[in-house]
């Protein structure tokens, strides 16, 4: 086997991987969260929003065209291999097309986030704004005390007010750094998902931690039994103040938490620490551009519905907190 053949095989593998990855990424939401019921009218609404953006539409068309060319190149590579023809020309072409595709796809994602997501969020709630280059500050995440980590990255910040409470939400990734026996550094992802932080107008001087029990292996200290069987079957609750937890986790609140999981199919944690509520969702990045306008619109609806469901939980907690002295 000569060098060109080996190089062709590697390139072929990379292209197949890229295509599969791109296609599966756009279907991630529907595949992973098969319980999600997406409102078709809303999808249509956001699809129109994307279609009306001419520059984005052009980028999308170019992107689709290059993807088709790449697929043709793959077929040609196979044919060239089978006929033992020198594949150098087609390899160079495929490499160039792959680079162009990656650049155009990145441009599409960036444009989508800047123009469409901001508009969609304003459309949902005028109080919310979006900045793809910012994220939840590291110190805020440390305050939540979810886990220990060495590296922290956060982007796609949504900020504003929800029910008159300051609110921020963004994609977060935490990693720990480990060195193996040969001295190589490995980065192990501890958490990758979405985190939201809401400042309450009341300090509970305590903590309440609600976690989906599939995310936890062992019972920890301060476990509390909530008097809602369907809730305890799915969630573990921890707190240093049992009475306060029972006051806050009224049947209304527990039902809204269960409703959110039923609706979105996402596993999540809620942590109330003094005057702050943290939500941590084990999901893909929100507001990602899909491989088609339809998928991008679905992702938008999905992301906004997640915020809306979270709003319902916050509303039911705030109702309890506002009604009584803590």
């Amino acid at each position: 086997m000569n060098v060109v053949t080996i190089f062709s095989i590697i390139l072929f593998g990379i292209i197949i991987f890229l295509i599969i990855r791109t296609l599966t990424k756009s279907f991630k939401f529907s595949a992973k969260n098969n319980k999600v019921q997406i409102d078709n009218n809303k999808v249509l609404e956001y699809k129109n929003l994307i279609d009306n953006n001419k520059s984005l539409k052009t980028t999308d068309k170019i992107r689709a065209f290059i993807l088709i060319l790449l697929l043709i190149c793959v077929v040609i590579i196979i044919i060239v291999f089978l006929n033992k023809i020198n594949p150098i020309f087609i390899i160079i072409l495929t490499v160039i097309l792959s680079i162009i595709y990656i650049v155009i796809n990145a441009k599409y994602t960036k444009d989508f986030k800047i123009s469409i997501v901001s508009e969609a969020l304003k459309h949902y709630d005028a109080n919310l704004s979006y900045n793809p280059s910012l994220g939840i500050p590291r110190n805020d995440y440390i305050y939540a005390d979810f886990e220990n980590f060495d590296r922290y990255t956060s982007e796609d910040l949504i900020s504003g007010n929800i029910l008159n409470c300051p609110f921020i939400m963004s994609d977060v990734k935490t990693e720990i750094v480990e060195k193996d026996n040969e001295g190589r550094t490995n980065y192990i992802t501890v958490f990758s998902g979405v985190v939201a932080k809401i400042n309450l107008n009341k300090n509970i001087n305590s903590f309440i931690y609600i976690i989906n029990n599939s995310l936890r292996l062992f019972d920890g200290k301060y476990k509390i039994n909530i008097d809602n069987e369907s809730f305890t079957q799915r969630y573990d609750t921890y707190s240093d103040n049992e009475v306060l937890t029972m006051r806050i986790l009224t049947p209304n609140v527990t039902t809204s938490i269960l409703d959110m999981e039923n609706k979105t199919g996402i596993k999540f944690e809620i942590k109330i620490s003094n005057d702050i509520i943290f939500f941590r969702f084990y999901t893909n990045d929100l507001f990602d551009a899909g491989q088609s306008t339809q998928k991008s619109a679905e992702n938008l609806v999905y992301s906004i519905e997640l915020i809306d469901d979270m709003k319902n939980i916050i509303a039911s907690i705030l109702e309890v907190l506002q009604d009584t002295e803590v």
Partner: protein
Amino acid sequence: MKLYIILGILAVIIIWFICTLNKFIYLRRRIDRSKSLIDVYLKNRFDLIPNLVECCKGYSNYEKNTLTEIAKLRSSYEKNNDEESGEKLNNHYKKLVALIENYPELKAGENFLNLQKNLEKVESEIAASRRIYINDITRYNTLTKSIPANIIAKIFNYEELSYPILETEEIKINF
């Protein structure tokens, strides 16, 4: 080999026995604890009665009897701390809360507003502690009825418990 199997089975049974018995002990202790938690919050409720009576004095000339009766019942409850006087005091407390609804001028006072907040808090705490108590009893009762834990319940006389008395019911503060 057979001996090891028998010993293994015996070890499993003994471990299960100890664990289940400990669970019974733990749940009974929890029930006692949550019952005393209710008592603490009930005491807080009754501790607010003198303030409530004081607030009402100036306004409710017609209900003087009720106020005097409540004051008597409270001292009797503090002396005896029994269920009967607690229930009587509770009934009068409910009456007093209902009476306040008739005095809009009383509800506007700053002292009363503070008192109202405290009353709401204590009622919410009673409701929460009552839920904890009922939940603990439910868990315990479920264990006494479930197979094979009911064998241990019978051996050690862990009988099914009844649910809490009316005294602990939450009173809605909607002044």
